């Protein structure tokens, strides 16, 4: 096991989340936007696990903190991500059937 300080893992998580936000905002291909959302969910997962690892340290572990919460929350996040990907990609297929494109700019159904 590694001895990297928790702050460095959290930094990686923040940078990964920022990358996901950037992709979510500047791309107009629906599939790449969904991939960016997966990046953000993974960053959140990494944060949960870093916190769990942090509280498992020798001088912190005694005071009733349940370090299993991190892995369990991560498990639920992975589950929700799977459901989200399934619904999102089904929507992409329905969208493509309707418009013959995957450009987000074409989604103006609610505006008109």
């Amino acid at each position, binding site marked *: 096991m590694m001895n*990297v300080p928790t702050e460095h893992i959290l930094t990686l998580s923040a940078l990964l989340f920022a990358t996901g936000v950037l*992709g979510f905002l500047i791309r107009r291909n629906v599939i790449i936007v969904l991939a960016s959302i997966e990046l953000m969910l993974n960053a959140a997962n990494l944060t949960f696990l870093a916190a769990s690892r942090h509280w498992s340290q020798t001088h912190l572990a005694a005071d009733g903190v349940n370090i299993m919460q991190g892995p369990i929350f991560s498990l639920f996040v992975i589950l929700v991500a799977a459901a989200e990907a399934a619904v999102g990609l089904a929507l992409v297929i329905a969208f493509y059937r309707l418009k013959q494109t995957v450009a987000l*700019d074409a989604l103006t159904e609610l505006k008109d």
Partner: protein
Amino acid sequence: MADTLFYILAAGTLACGMGVVTARMPLFSVLSLLGSLFCLSAIYLLSGFQFLAATQLLVYAGAIMVLFLFVIMLLNLGDEAELQGHLGFSLSGKKGLIAGATALSLGLVGVVGAGYSTPFVANPAYERGVDDLNALATVLFSRYALPFEAASLLLLATMIGVITLAKRQRTTDAGAHPQSAPPSTDGETAA
């Protein structure tokens, strides 16, 4: 040794993440996401989360990535250049400014946070991994039993929703939006 490996994997994760955002073709974007997920799984393993690393590989790299690739190949999405504008970026004006500022400030928070690095003291009790499967299952099936059952409901609802979305074309689409539907009829709707 393991520390160096972590920094290499972190660099790989971020490089692949940038690949997701900047790739020209959706296929390369998704493959880059796969690389990012692999690096993250290795980081989980190094942090002492063996079960989560395996789950990450099975669910993300296995199931979700296959779903993404399947949709890309089903829709025959090749080059993105046919989208209006170059490269499919919509980085323009106020929106691009907001995007850049958000990402930059988030990243800066992380870099500033890296300045405060308290040393990590590993607990010998967790020498064989933090998420021991026995302890994890004990907590999951006692304290988190209700969320666990709710998760199964969520999956059921997702399944029904996806089936509904996938087969709604013949009945509702043709009649509901006659003016907005594209002129290309594929024979199924006509029949």
